[in-house]
């Protein structure tokens, strides 16, 4: 009994640790300007929606959300398509160089952003792709491919080869096998990988910062980091923007929790 009480208590502490700081930011977003300016801070807000309204329409939050949806959505779609092809080949043809490719991708995913930032900026500048959706999307596809391929390879390896061989004997081509047999079986894994890539690109800040300098086309993280305030920090609006940027991720994460944990540890633990 003593043991289970200690467990329950520790579990509660962990949950509070994870939830409290963000919860306080959410509460902040629901305050009135007067409650926000109270010193010492008032903990319980009067559930006022004013900051959401001014963040969305006066501070361009609606635009940032739109830009982020376009960029993260497109990058995820292409990255998962291109990544699935590569991961399928890596999982099916266990050749020396495909294995080397997988290791090289792991190494690439460890690069510090600054190590490639200058030349990436330069390429996009030459193409006249700075401050465009396709510029950032292209960079994001390349940056998220290592993650996508690693997770997808783990999931493809779990699809039994025998089913494919049967289909090949029945006269299907490789592409048909991929489309009609492997993809449906690997669908849950692909969905998980897509979710992780989406979260990754939705949250990405460094490249978004250097590629998108025009406020009209900036994504959410850049918008939130550079939130415009003329004289004082508009904390209420920043809290509201942060809440709106995060809540969808939290719902997605809670909903797909099992898959995400598996996807994350696929890359991490199995090495």
């Amino acid at each position: 009994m003593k043991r289970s009480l200690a467990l329950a208590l520790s579990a509660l502490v962990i949950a509070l640790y994870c939830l409290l700081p963000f919860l306080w930011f959410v509460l902040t977003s629901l305050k009135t300007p007067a409650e926000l300016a109270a010193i010492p801070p008032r903990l319980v807000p009067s559930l006022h929606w004013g900051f959401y309204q001014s963040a969305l329409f006066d501070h361009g939050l609606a635009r940032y959300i739109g830009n982020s949806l376009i960029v993260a959505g497109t990058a995820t779609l292409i990255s998962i398509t291109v990544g699935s092809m590569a991961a399928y080949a890596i999982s099916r043809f266990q050749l020396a160089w495909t294995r080397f490719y997988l290791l090289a991708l792991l190494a690439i995913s460890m690069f510090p952003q600054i190590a490639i930032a200058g030349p990436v900026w330069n390429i996009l500048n030459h193409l006249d792709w700075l401050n465009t959706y396709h510029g950032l999307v292209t960079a994001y596809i390349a940056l998220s491919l290592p993650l996508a391929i690693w997770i997808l390879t783990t999931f493809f390896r779990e699809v039994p080869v025998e089913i494919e061989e049967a289909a090949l004997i029945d006269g299907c081509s490789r592409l048909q096998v991929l489309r009609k047999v492997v993809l449906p079986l690997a669908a849950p894994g692909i969905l998980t990988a897509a979710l992780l890539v989406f979260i990754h690109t939705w949250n990405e800040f460094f490249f978004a910062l250097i590629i998108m300098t025009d406020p009209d086309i900036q994504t959410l993280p850049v918008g939130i980091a550079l939130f415009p305030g003329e004289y004082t920090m508009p904390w209420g609006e920043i809290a509201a923007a942060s809440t709106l940027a995060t809540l969808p991720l939290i719902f997605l994460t809670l909903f797909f929790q099992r898959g995400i944990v598996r996807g994350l540890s696929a890359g991490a633990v199995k090495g």
Partner: protein
Amino acid sequence: MKSSHRLALLFIVPSLVFVSVFTLYPIVESFRLSFYRMILTLPWLGQKMVGWENYLDLWTDPVAWQALRTTLLFVAITVPSELLLGLGMALVMNEAFRGRGVLRAVVLIPWAIPTVVSSQMWRFIFNDRYGLFNFVLFGGDTARYFAPLADPRFAMLAIMAAEIWKTAPFAALIILAGLQTISDEVYEAASIDGATSWQKFYHVTLPLLWPALLLALLFRTIDALRVFDLVFVMTQGGPADATNVLQFYGYKKTFAEGMIGYGSTIAVTVFMISLILALAYLRALKSERLQGAAR
């Protein structure tokens, strides 16, 4: 055999094109540029090959050394703290109790929050007037409220706290996955031999968990070396360069001051540090695994 090579290549080429153009070529280009003097604000200088000059400048640049020290200190404090906290959380989550599933989901929340958002959140928590930090510390005694982020002694600690908060739960999940690979039978055998809980943890759990811990250490170290978002949002490297970490310094030189050559030198240096650490860890891990297999 020949056809399987060609087919594999066909499937892999699209990804290879993206990765080559946007990560491999840029790395090589960064190395090349690090030997040139190239300043965007002084375009008439053009691109001039200067050999090792940038590296010599870096060697005698006190701000660069400070950035290196700050970055290494950041890694040395945050990573072990995250792993210890994560280990504690993982041990709790590995036990059977009601609501364990919920807890495992809740732990993902700090990980899912965009770093920019958690940075703004912690910046507000450490605010000198409205922040929760001062309120928890001093309550209504507003005269004692202070601004940790504006104080060179505390700014880095505040950033470290924000980093640990966000990544410890992620470390917990990696460690938990490692814990789950340890079978109950090993613990039962230890119990039969009369081992105490602490002995079980020290002699059974820890050695078997070692590969997972080492991997978490590797991932967290390499990620912590890249710290940028937190610094950009919370302090902009200040006050007085107290939180100026390597990636932020490189960013500032390259993109704010347009010093392409010198910025590339910083970039290459950061890259080499990460690479050496990654290789060292991978070797350690490999030998660890070999030992594990021999046992």
